[in-house]
């Protein structure tokens, strides 16, 4: 298919449509409002539904209600809006409904700023909401991958019957890049008749379905949590995605970085190569499940002296990197959080300082 030049936010909206998601509920917030603006035009063409909710809290539950009927559904927001959805995400996970959330991160905490950031890593991967649930989180590094991951998100949400999140940043949402759209996703959500409240007549059944997260009996609630845990375990076995860059040969330093930040790191790595300084990169594409083993293996390579997690945050993913490296190498953090993205030059000088010390 020919490439088209698209803004990340619009491409995400188009990707949803091509993934067969015709139901979109959202509340405007910079830097992702273009998704809603695009879909407000696009969905009517395919008899889809767009509702601008009164708040992100309400949107979270519109998503829940729609997902509970077994329909593909998506919302998009940015950091503060996602915080307002955390109760809903916990409910959706608890009620085991498939739903796709997109967070185009901006600077925080609080109102913070509107420029790109990666400050919501913890919130996304450790669950912003209460209780024992995890969210499958994919982090694209550009518009093309944003499209691919968005289209993947729906079948994954249906496979695990839970929330899946695309974690992008303001740059990915605002930037235009050429995109080639994958094949449309034509398979409809399966087996929803087993659990969805899609109406007994619809599924020709006399048994009611319940979409709920309440289990007053402690034994039942524990079993329910064990079922969820088993799903997260399976994600760790089947869904880990990552990319390695310049890790075939020897390298003195291993960078772990994701999303927009990882692109800058690659530029830095290429520049350092010019000066004969070899640095490797592992880019997690799934933040949960986190590529623990890949990071460990890359870190313990003979030649590797330091591991550094480079983030557009004050150091969040670095905790998962530490866990993965198991003390076999010293693990550090480098980054900024405010909207400015560390430049290749800044990264290079940090890496050199590591090697000096």
């Amino acid at each position: 298919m020919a490439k088209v030049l698209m803004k990340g936010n619009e491409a995400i909206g188009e990707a949803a449509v091509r993934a067969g998601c015709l139901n979109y509920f959202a509340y405007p917030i910079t830097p992702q409002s273009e998704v809603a603006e695009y879909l407000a035009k696009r969905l009517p063409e395919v008899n889809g539904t767009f509702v601008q909710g009164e708040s992100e809290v309400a949107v979270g539950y519109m998503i829940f209600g729609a997902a509970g009927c077994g329909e593909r559904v998506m919302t998009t927001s940015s950091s503060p809006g996602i915080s307002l959805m955390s109760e809903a995400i916990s409910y959706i996970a608890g009620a085991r409904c498939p739903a796709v959330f997109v967070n185009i991160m901006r600077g925080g905490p609080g109102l913070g700023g509107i420029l790109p950031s990666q400050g919501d890593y913890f919130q996304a991967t450790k669950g912003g909401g209460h209780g024992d649930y995890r969210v499958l989180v994919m982090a694209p590094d550009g518009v093309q991958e944003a499209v691919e991951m968005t289209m993947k998100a729906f079948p994954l949400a249906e496979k695990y019957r839970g929330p899946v999140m695309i974690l992008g940043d303001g740059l990915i949402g605002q930037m235009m890049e050429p995109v080639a759209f994958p094949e449309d996703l034509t398979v409809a959500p399966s087996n929803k008749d087993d659990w969805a409240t899609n109406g007994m007549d619809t599924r020709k059944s006399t048994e009611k379905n319940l979409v709920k997260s309440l289990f007053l009996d402690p034994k039942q609630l524990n079993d329910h949590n064990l079922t969820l845990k088993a799903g997260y375990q399976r994600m760790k076995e089947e869904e880990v995605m990552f990319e390695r860059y310049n890790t075939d040969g020897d390298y003195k330093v291993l960078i772990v970085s994701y999303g927009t930040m990882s692109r800058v790191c690659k530029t830095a790595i290429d520049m350092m190569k010019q000066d004969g300084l070899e640095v490797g990169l592992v880019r997690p594409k799934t933040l949960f499940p986190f590529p623990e083993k890949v990071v460990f293996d890359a870190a313990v390579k003979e030649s590797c002296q330091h591991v550094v997690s480079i983030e557009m945050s004050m150091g969040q993913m670095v905790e998962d990197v530490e866990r993965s490296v198991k003390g076999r190498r010293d693990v550090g953090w480098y980054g900024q959080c405010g909207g400015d993205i560390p430049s290749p030059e800044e990264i290079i000088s940090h890496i050199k300082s590591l090697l000096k010390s």
Partner: protein
Amino acid sequence: MQKEVMFAGFGGQGILLSAKLLAHAAMKQGLEVAWVPSYGPEMRGGTAYCTVVVGDKRIGSPIIKTPSHLVAMNRPSLEKFAPDVQPNGVVLINSSLIPVQSGRDDVVELIVPANEAAIELGSVKCANIVAVSAFAAKSKMVDIDLLRESVKEQFASKAKLIPLNMKAFDKGLEIAEKA
């Protein structure tokens, strides 16, 4: 080989559009490209700018602090960004709104009275087209014919605007040659 150009001016001068046209042409040319706008409330009534990065391999960091070229459509933009342009880069100065020059001797200054030219052609709105074609001609960043096509496509939906913008496009080339 990677080249970057910063387009800058007031909101409403069509900055983002001229940048998009350039990016689009580059894509048609089979190049890798990223179009990176500034966004947010600080733009309100203020300066709008946008970077286009074009290269033969996947664009790494799309955030450019020292672009190869600059298209400055108003004075604050020129003053803000001219110092960052790489040596030998093209600096387009919209002389209709900018009485001064870049003050640099290591760049190629391209003086384009974009607004006047556009007004002559019938509408100040197409000043950005004058500018982008002039810039492309001078910088050789993209193939001129592909850029012309991109302009046509852009206005396909408002066909009656095409002739005007084609005139503007050629005017830009003409200015660039004369310069």
